């Protein structure tokens, strides 16, 4: 303070200046001969000193870190700025100071040269740049985050993902070896990643072994390793005398590690201060002193150079890691895309192979005028073959006209419309080449191509039709019942009326007639009711399925109609082998009985009546037949033949239930029946199947 007193007299209007200087809301200082000679309250407050007087007499560099944010040494920059101010009258720059509590103070400095009384004064005016700096940092980080594509992918990445620790260890060891400084890489939280290189005994075995010393060291490591994009952080360690520095390793805007170096001492080391520290942390002072001597000595300039090298190394590592990361990410994305594609192909293939619907991919063939003329089948799935029974040739492709053996490609117009419009369509169509009905979804995967996804609905349509038939039959049934039961009732009631009259008139002839009609009608009614009951039982109440020999069943049936056969002298030709069948035996007997009875009944008066009963093998199935040479059936009446209450011959005594019954029994057993006749007078043949019926070989199945 002493040598700075009395300078105010150098100012011609010193009081005015002093007032302005001291009350300036901005920090203001005066430098002469490289030393602060005055400091106002604002400046002291910013530097966190209680009294401005405490600053006077200090060198600016004492209140600054070793290196300025842009990575240059504070001493170098200071010299440059001063030269500039002296030369140009003023200099304007950013500066970082170290406050009394060790925190950093960012200021915007205006340095003005004041040549007064032959002395060079430098007037320092500060504007607090911390806020500006803070905002700038946020923007920088954000920019970096955006430009580094820090799309959350770095968040989960640790140091270990990015670096091979052993390799990093080698670099770190080599760095320490070359520079002579101790070195360690830690995670941002201070956890060591590498093994320490060239750690001195003082730090390793003495200071860090004490509780307080270790705590201080970790704190120190954390401070110097903190995020600092502008350059290495250099500062004396808390031990008081050793230099430490650190550089952060940033990847994709994220602080993944800190590279710390240090444990070197200045030539001018305050040994007393160090020993005081030993005392403070409770270390053995003798041991401490001897270890201190082992600490490498390094000039400040040299350490700064090492720091700069470290900074470059760390930046390079960051860069490299980032490139690795990006590359890894690109590779991963690519792999993901490839595996996604493979997966989707796999999925599609599985779907294609296992779909119950048939799938076929086609390409439309166009003529010179762009008219669709044919299409070829490019690929089909197994279900296609199942549904159509068709296989693609070895070559894998085939024209529709060839595959389906048609002159015109089936549904060319509809399919090519989809291939050109790209609009999916749905059809239910009859595919004539295969004689089957299909529901077909047609889609176009690309222009000129179409895929058909189809299902065979022949069976479904057949069942629908069957159901419709059944419903109609049901309606016909109720109608028929009401009519056919009412009809004999009308007869009975009416002839009872006549009977009364005829009895009153004693008209015996008519009485007999009346009674005859009444009898017949009552009989008919009773028979009708019996058969209706029988019909309603089929499908509901069946006899237990038993194995039977059809030949025996036929013989039984023949026995039952033996009377009528002999009465009309019908010749029976029965040519059946032993046939096994499992089903409702009484019902099957009824089938043959009904058919034989019918054949005999409608024999007309021919002289050589014959009824043939036999079977023919047709593929898997046996087809049974009952053939007669009787009156035959007009082909117009064939469709009505098996309908309920349908009678072809008005004169005969049937109820019109017999053949309906026969059909029901056969259908319940899974078979079908039809009748053929070449016309009136040409006989009739009934053919039917009973699935599961097998000719016994040598008397065995």
């Amino acid at each position: 303070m002493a040598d700075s007193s009395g300078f105010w007299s150098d100012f011609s209007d010193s009081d005015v200046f002093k007032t302005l200087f001291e009350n300036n809301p901005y920090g203001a200082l005066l430098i002469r001969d490289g030393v602060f000679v005055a400091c106002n309250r604002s400046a002291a407050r910013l530097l966190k000193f209680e009294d401005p007087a405490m600053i006077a007499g200090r060198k600016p560099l004492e209140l600054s870190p070793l290196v300025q944010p842009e990575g240059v040494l504070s001493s170098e920059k200071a010299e440059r700025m001063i030269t500039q101010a002296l030369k140009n009258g003023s200099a304007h720059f950013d500066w970082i100071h170290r406050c009394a509590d060790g925190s950093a103070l960012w200021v915007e400095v205006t340095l003005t040269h004041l040549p007064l009384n032959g002395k060079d004064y430098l007037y320092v005016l500060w504007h607090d740049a911390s806020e500006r700096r803070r905002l700038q940092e946020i923007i920088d980080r954000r920019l970096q985050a955006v430009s580094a594509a820090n799309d959350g992918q770095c968040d989960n990445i640790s140091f270990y993902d990015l670096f091979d620790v052993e390799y990093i260890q080698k670099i770190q060891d080599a760095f320490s070896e070359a520079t002579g400084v101790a070195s360690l890489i830690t995670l941002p939280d201070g956890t060591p990643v590498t093994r320490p290189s060239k750690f001195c005994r003082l730090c390793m075995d003495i200071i860090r072994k004490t509780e307080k010393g270790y705590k201080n060291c970790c704190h120190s490591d954390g401070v110097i390793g903190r995020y600092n994009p502008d350059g290495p952080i250099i500062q004396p360690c808390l031990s008081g005398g050793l230099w430490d520095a650190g550089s952060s390793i940033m990847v994709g805007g994220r602080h993944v590690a800190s590279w710390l170096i240090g444990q070197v001492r200045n030539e001018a080391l305050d040994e007393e201060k160090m020993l005081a520290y030993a005392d403070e942390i409770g270390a053995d002072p003798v041991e401490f002193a001897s270890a201190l001597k082992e600490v490498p000595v390094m000039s400040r300039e040299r350490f700064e150079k090492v720091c700069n090298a470290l900074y470059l190394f760390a930046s390079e590592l960051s860069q490299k890691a980032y490139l690795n990361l990006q590359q890894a990410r690109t590779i991963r994305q690519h792999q993901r895309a490839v595996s996604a594609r493979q997966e989707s192909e796999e999925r599609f293939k599985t779907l294609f192979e296992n779909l119950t619907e048939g799938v076929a991919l086609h390409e439309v063939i166009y003529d010179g005028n762009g008219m669709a003329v044919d299409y070829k089948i490019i690929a089909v799935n197994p279900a296609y073959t199942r549904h159509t029974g068709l296989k693609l040739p070895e070559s894998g492709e085939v024209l529709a006209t060839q595959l389906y053996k048609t002159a015109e490609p089936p549904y060319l117009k509809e399919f090519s419309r989809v291939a050109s419009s790209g609009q999916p369509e749905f059809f239910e169509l009859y595919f004539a080449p295969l004689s089957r009905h299909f529901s077909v979804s047609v889609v176009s995967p690309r222009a000129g191509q179409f895929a058909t996804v189809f299902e065979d609905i022949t069976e479904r349509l057949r069942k629908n039709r069957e159901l419709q038939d059944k419903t109609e039959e049901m309606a016909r049934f109720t109608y028929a019942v009401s009519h056919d039961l009412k009809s004999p009732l009308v007869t009975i009631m009416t002839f009872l009326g006549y009977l009364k009259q005829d009895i009153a008139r004693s008209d015996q002839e008519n009485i007999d007639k009346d009674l005859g009609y009444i009898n017949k009608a009552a009989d008919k009614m009773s028979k009708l009711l019996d058969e209706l009951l029988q019909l309603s039982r089929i499908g509901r109440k069946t006899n237990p399925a038993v194995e039977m020999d059809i030949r025996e069943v036929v013989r039984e049936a023949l026995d039952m109609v033996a009377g009528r056969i002999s009465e009309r002298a019908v010749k029976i030709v029965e040519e059946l082998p032993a046939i096994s069948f499992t089903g409702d035996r009484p019902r099957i007997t009824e089938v043959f009985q009904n058919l034989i009875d019918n054949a005999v009944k409608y024999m007309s008066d021919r002289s050589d009546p014959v009824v043939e009963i036999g079977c023919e093998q047709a593929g898997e199935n046996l087809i049974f037949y009952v053939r007669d040479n009787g009156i035959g059936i007009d082909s117009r009446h064939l469709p009505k033949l098996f309908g309920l209450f349908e009678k072809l011959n008005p004169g005969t005594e049937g109820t019109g239930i017999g053949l309906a019954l026969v059909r029901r029994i056969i259908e319940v057993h899974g078979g079908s029946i039809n009748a053929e006749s070449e016309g009136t007078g040409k006989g009739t043949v009934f053919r039917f199947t009973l699935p599961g019926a097998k000719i016994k070989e040598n008397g065995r199945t």
Partner: protein
Amino acid sequence: MDGEPITILLVEDDPAHAEIVRRNMSDFRVANRIVHVEDGQQALDYLFRRENFKDPQTSPRPSLILLDLRMSRVDGLEVLRQIKEDENLRKIPAVVLTTSAAEADLARAYEYGVGSYLVKPVDFSKFTELMNSFGFYWLAWNRFPE
């Protein structure tokens, strides 16, 4: 009551019902002019002069057709349809006499141009009364074309 002698074609597959018609008509002394055929097929053969009905002497053109509906082979409705499609036969009035009171039968019958639709009553006196009214109407009062 000085009705012209006319021929009625009775199409009825139930002999008992044919007998009922015949007995009722005998009161109108037209019984011998009732030609009875047993189903639709025979009716068509008769009307179109086919098979056994080729001779106009033995198979004269009827003035009235009395038709049952539910019959074997060809039913009454089909007979009506074919009659009404024929230029010549469509002039013959046709009356349905059936046990069926089904709405569908009734509608179809009129669709095919039937002149009247009569349902056979189960009650004796009603049936007799119906046949009497029928006889009076068609045989006494009604005038047929030449």
